[in-house]
């Protein structure tokens, strides 16, 4: 069970002149600070998949970065199975598998070496790493390229390897930031099937996306963030009920409520 309550994060704006027109008009810009996330709360139980939606720049990535402990929230709390991520980030890191949107691989290492390195950092033994890579390799279809240097990988190969790396330590919670962006249909399907597999194992998954069909296919819960605030956090059924027949309309309805 993951519980995020009243999360907030602001960033100092060093040079206001560099901000775009859109950023200057954003209500979150207050004085010298840009309040990227103002009030985000969401919950996700074991075996549930939560789709995090929101327009570009809404605060999704900042929220996920706080969840992954890369950023420290200014206020609010994140609890995984009752333990605070904010207070004990090092322990929390062991239980989270995080794939950031701008993730990369070490190009001069092979896919196997990339995954194994993070296994080692998580304190796994050599034999455990070997077994886990073998299992992930068949799940994510990595066999054909795993021993090649990552420099030569296609986008799909990179993303699949990055996902394997993120979950090498069998985390209690998996967080994926736009995992299917830029992938071809085949690669995207493998990723979605992998998320489905996690769900069946009872591992909660939080993933941000712009593809509502993925939400319809996988998610139990939906959370919509707009201007750094949670505008919707409930089940997919309730979300669908906002505008019967179209998830797009439901999403637009939530955004419109936030703007009102």
């Amino acid at each position: 069970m993951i519980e995020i309550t009243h999360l907030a994060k602001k960033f100092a704006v060093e040079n206001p002149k560099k901000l775009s027109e859109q950023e200057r008009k954003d209500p979150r810009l207050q004085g010298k600070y840009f309040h990227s996330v103002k009030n985000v709360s969401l919950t996700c139980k074991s075996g549930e998949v939560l789709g995090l939606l929101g327009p570009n720049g809404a605060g999704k990535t900042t929220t996920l970065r706080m969840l992954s402990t890369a950023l420290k929230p200014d206020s609010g709390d994140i609890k995984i199975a009752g333990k605070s991520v904010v207070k004990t980030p090092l322990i929390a890191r062991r239980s989270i598998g995080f794939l950031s949107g701008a993730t990369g691989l070490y190009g001069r290492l092979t896919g196997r070496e990339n995954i194994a390195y993070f296994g080692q950092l998580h304190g796994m033994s050599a034999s455990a790493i070997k077994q886990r890579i073998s299992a992930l390799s068949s799940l994510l279809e990595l066999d054909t390229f795993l021993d090649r240097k990552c420099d030569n990988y296609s986008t799909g190969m990179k993303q699949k390897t990055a996902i394997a790396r993120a979950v090498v330590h069998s985390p209690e919670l998996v967080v994926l930031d736009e995992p299917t962006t830029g992938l071809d249909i085949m690669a995207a399907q493998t990723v979605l099937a992998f998320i489905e597999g996690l769900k069946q194992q009872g591992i909660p998954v939080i993933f941000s996306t712009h593809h509502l069909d993925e939400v319809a296919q996988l998610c139990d819960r939906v959370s919509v963030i707009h201007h750094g605030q949670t505008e919707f956090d409930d089940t997919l059924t309730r979300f669908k009920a906002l505008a019967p027949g179209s998830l797009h309309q439901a999403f637009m309805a939530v955004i419109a409520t936030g703007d009102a």
Partner: protein
Amino acid sequence: MWMVFIKEMKEVVRDRKTMFFMILLPLLIFPLIIGAVAYFSTKAAQDAQSKTLTYAIVNAEAAPQIDAALAKADGFKRLSLPANTSIDSWVKSDGADFVLAVPPDYDADPLQAGNNNLELYYNGAGFNAIEARLNTLIDPIAKANQRAAFDKLEITPAQQSAIMAPIVIKDINVADERENIGEVLGGLVAYVIFILCLQGAMIPAADLGAGEKERGTLETLLISPIDRHKIVLGKFLTIATAGVTTALISVLSMAVWGILVGQSMAIEVVTNFMGAIGLIDFLLIFLMLIPVVAIFAAVLLSLSIYAKTFKEAQSYMGPLVMVIIVPIVMATLPGIELKGIWAWVPLTNVALAMKELIKGTMDYYQLIGIFGSTAVIGGGLLVFCVHWFNKEKVLFR
């Protein structure tokens, strides 16, 4: 920490660009550059010596000895000075390589003529050996004339020698050969080693900090359950290892090439000099690399973590090459020795110590100052790196 180190080293070794700067450049390029410079300068000197020089003599009949010597000597070709032409412009317009003007009152007997002032016109722009080659012909004539004059005055060769040099000061330099060469070579060695250490460490440093940011691997590394200081130390050790390796390879390459050149050209000084430096001093010179790379690696890592991209990191690091010249120049200034406060001035103390070690006059107690100041500065910079590795502002710039 070691996991990070091993993985980073694996990446460094697989990077062709880094390997080129670390190994190939010092191993082959330096000897090639030095060899090419030596070859072309020797060739230029040989050409100047063997080239046939064209000349003219004004008033040749006044000095028949000189005229005859020039006519007899190999590699000289006499021309006649065209009428109504100034000597200056003729030589300038490459009419001849030189013109020797003999004064009309020239007399072979110095007792009669006093100083015979001959004028040599030549174009001194560019490398030439005119004066040296001419002197080898004229000196014996001058000596013979001098001897004849002393004979006329009934002065024996012994008396002549005493008159020519009534007071002789004989140099007895107690510094041995090693100390003499060491003074000159010591500064140079420090300079080369410093630059190479920096050069070797620079590319991996830019890759390990800014490169990770640019590729998007840093965020994943930061959320793995490893303490930030271990990441910093692992990266620091990798950069330091790259720097030391480059410097070691360069020093070894220089030593090997030095011995080869020394033996092939039978330069006894070089062979003796290399032989005079004991094993312990050699080891200490290598040991001196530790404080150097510790400071360089820490500075480079700080810059690299701050930079957003590989390119930005390199542009911060470039000026460092200029900056490190300052402490090296300080070490070569007169009056600055490895004692007192100077033993605590970073990098300058290492440059001074390298000089002392090569000279063989090292005061080993000064090592305390050297390693003490390095530990403080290197340690401080590492703490700073760890601090920066914890700063969201720097990491997500």
